[in-house]
């Protein structure tokens, strides 16, 4: 496995970074690419935003819970209304071919490696 094939965390330096929850993630790499799982409970499909820009992947989501009118919170562990997390991708990942699935609050992102970066077996010729 290539040492450089990493999805590294990036500090939130963006000026528009409002207070947001950091969703927990799992990141798994195999020979063909990287799979990222993120927990974003309470985010409906239309309020989940994924951006890939240059080598930065941004996952953003807004919570939308059904709340009866006039509800007062007495205990809140999820106290912010949005999630946000930023990752730095590496060059051998093919950002054109990212596929995403969002089900029951779990986002599954598959980022394949560019073909030239996939492992190849090199034949050793005997002279």
């Amino acid at each position, binding site marked *: *496995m290539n040492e450089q094939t*990493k*999805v*590294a*965390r990036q500090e939130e330096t963006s000026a528009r970074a409002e207070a947001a929850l950091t969703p*927990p*993630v*799992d*990141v*798994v*790499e*195999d*020979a063909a690419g990287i799979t990222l*799982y993120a*927990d*974003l*409970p*309470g*985010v*409906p*499909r239309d309020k989940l935003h994924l951006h890939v820009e240059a080598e930065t992947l941004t996952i953003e989501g807004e919570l*939308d*819970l*059904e*709340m*009866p*009118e*006039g*509800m*007062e*919170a*007495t*205990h*809140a*562990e*999820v106290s912010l209304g949005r999630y946000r997390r930023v990752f730095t991708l590496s060059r051998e990942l093919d950002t054109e071919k990212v596929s995403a699935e969002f*089900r*029951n*609050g*779990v986002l*599954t992102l598959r980022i394949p490696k560019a073909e030239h970066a996939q492992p190849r077996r090199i034949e050793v010729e005997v002279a």
Partner: protein
Amino acid sequence: MYRALFSPDMFSELDRLQREMNQAFAFSPSIRGLARGGFPAMNVGGTPQSVEIYAFAPGIDPASIEVTLEKGVLTVAGARTSDLPGKDVKANVHIEERFTGAFRRVVTLPEDADPEKVSARYRDGVLHISIQRRETAQPRRISVQ
């Protein structure tokens, strides 16, 4: 990468530190907990007519969530399976933060909650439990004649 930089001990140290900080600063919790940091995370709220509980439990088959109400105590239990590949698969796990395994959380309901009128719905990974309050306990305006 970040795992290689920090030894596992450092994480457990940070965990311990965080727990101690929580204990030092948190206002005394209920005897049944409702403390921070568990899975699923819970929000509790109420209106004059109902008690609303939100359990943030993404990626779970709704049929496998067990919600029980007994003697004024609401229990949410279940299990979440791992999405990570098994040991036989050739893959590297770089980040592993999501909860896996069995969970159980308990909430003490207010006395006026009516155990006969409970509804539970699972949407977008959030379990929303709504419990109506007994009518006799609801505020009433008494007209002065």
